[in-house]
């Protein structure tokens, strides 16, 4: 560790306290891991089922975030006006809302007797207690991560390259695909990774909205919670695995050299 120029030395104290606060709990958990049956616990049928469901739903949710999040980010970054600023703020709602509240809200929107769910039920579509409900909950909570990340990058990169592309005769769609998106590719990637991680970790909205059915809606965090009720030890191996996944994700995002501006 070399002292950074221009950073007051006393800043290191609160910074280290913060670091300790974040680092100590996972270390403490790892200490209690029952190593003897770690492998058998991780590879038990119910654990694998929950992990597989988590991965599958998180991938689908991330793809959905990409499909609707990028258009949102472009619209928000390139337009202005009061209404738009209000909408932009609204997109942050799932980020600041307790996930349980999000789950209850989803229940009243897409539940069997919900605002939209009611009409879906008439059409024979019932997403109660289905994997679709899990994906919906995950997309709801993950979307802001992608939108914020991409929109921020779009604002920083500005629209000068796009204007040049336009003067050279490229249409709006061609400009978007060939100029705008490549410009923000690193931010898009980190946004996707964060959205995926948030979807993997989703618990509150899922258990409230989708319920807990092994193989259908019981993702890894739900299994950890249920196991923990019975025997806290039993929940540790899967918890540890999720910590590892989370570590891989944050390292993947942040080891990109900071300050390297995206260039064409």
């Amino acid at each position, binding site marked *: *560790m070399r002292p950074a120029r221009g950073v007051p030395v006393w800043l*290191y*104290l609160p910074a280290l306290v913060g670091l*300790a606060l974040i680092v*100590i709990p996972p270390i403490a958990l790892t200490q209690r891991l029952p190593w003897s049956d770690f492998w058998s616990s991780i590879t038990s049928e119910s654990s694998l089922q929950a992990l597989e469901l988590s991965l599958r739903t998180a991938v689908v949710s991330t793809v959905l975030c990409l499909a609707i999040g990028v258009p949102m980010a472009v619209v928000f970054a390139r337009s202005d006006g009061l209404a738009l600023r209000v909408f932009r703020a609204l997109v942050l709602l799932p980020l600041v809302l307790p996930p349980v509240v999000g789950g209850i809200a989803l*229940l009243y929107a897409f539940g069997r007797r919900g605002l939209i769910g009611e009409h879906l039920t008439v059409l024979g579509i019932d997403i*109660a*207690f289905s994997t679709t409900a899990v994906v919906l909950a995950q997309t709801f909570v993950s979307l802001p991560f992608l939108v914020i990340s991409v929109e921020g990058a779009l604002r920083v990169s500005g629209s000068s390259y796009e204007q040049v592309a336009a003067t050279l005769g490229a249409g709006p769609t061609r400009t978007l695909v060939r100029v705008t998106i490549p410009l923000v590719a690193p931010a898009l990637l980190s946004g996707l990774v964060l959205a995926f991680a948030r979807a993997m970790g989703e618990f509150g909205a899922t258990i*409230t909205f989708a319920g807990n059915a092994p193989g259908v809606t019981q993702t890894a965090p739900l299994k950890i919670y249920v196991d923990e*009720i019975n025997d806290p030890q039993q929940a540790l191996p899967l918890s540890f695995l999720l910590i590892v996944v989370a570590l891989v994700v944050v390292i993947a995002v942040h080891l990109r050299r900071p300050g390297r501006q995206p260039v064409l």
Partner: protein
Amino acid sequence: MNARTTARIAALMAVVALGATACSSGDSSPSPSASASSSGDAPVTLTVFAAASLKKGFTEIAADFQKAHPNVTVKTTFDGSSALVTQIKQGATADVIATADEKTMTSLGDSAVNPRTFTRNVLTIITAPGNPKRIESVRDLARSGVTTVLCAPQVPCGNAAATVERNTGVDIRPASEETSVSGVVTKVTSGQADAGLVYTSDAKAAGSAVTSVNDPAFAAVVNEYPIAVVKGSQHAGEGRQFIDLVTGSTGQEVLSGLGFGAGR
């Protein structure tokens, strides 16, 4: 990272750890006399841990207790029985614990001093108001076209539901295994599920939002609620007095008014 930095980090982590200990032991007020039945004038804080289903009843009983013992402040904590047991095992200071089944109390071992049964709860079927799906018995919960939710087998109400299934030979395939009774109630009141198995006290608390359906099989599966003073309590005398109030006519009246004690 040089040796000095390492030492600094270690020191900081120690500070954080100390802070954490201070927090957890902060509420144990020093009490010189732990003598049996002293309800003298020294102010006493009696910490009562009780199962979530007892929230309404114990809040009322605690208020009555404080009226009779002005020097005592009853501090109640409500959570799932297993969560409370885990907290006590991890060193939380509680004077009295009341759980929703004997299994969780037994798991406390020596830490629970002479547990006594103070009330009981039996299962009941709940449906949407008016019982639109015409559910008459446990057998109907397994009917195709009926979406049933149960508690997860890890929690007391799920354990009781599993016993009913064993006794009746009915194999209910729940759409969701909720982690708490309140989860089952929400799924039924919101219309996500057609029916659920909960305790009579929960059905009573839900009021007109649900219709209860009884089945003779429920009488054989009675959940007994034990209460005990926690070993090492500084206020064992007050704790015993609180237990006397719960098991006496005042407490029993409050509880039966809330739907407890049925099936006796």
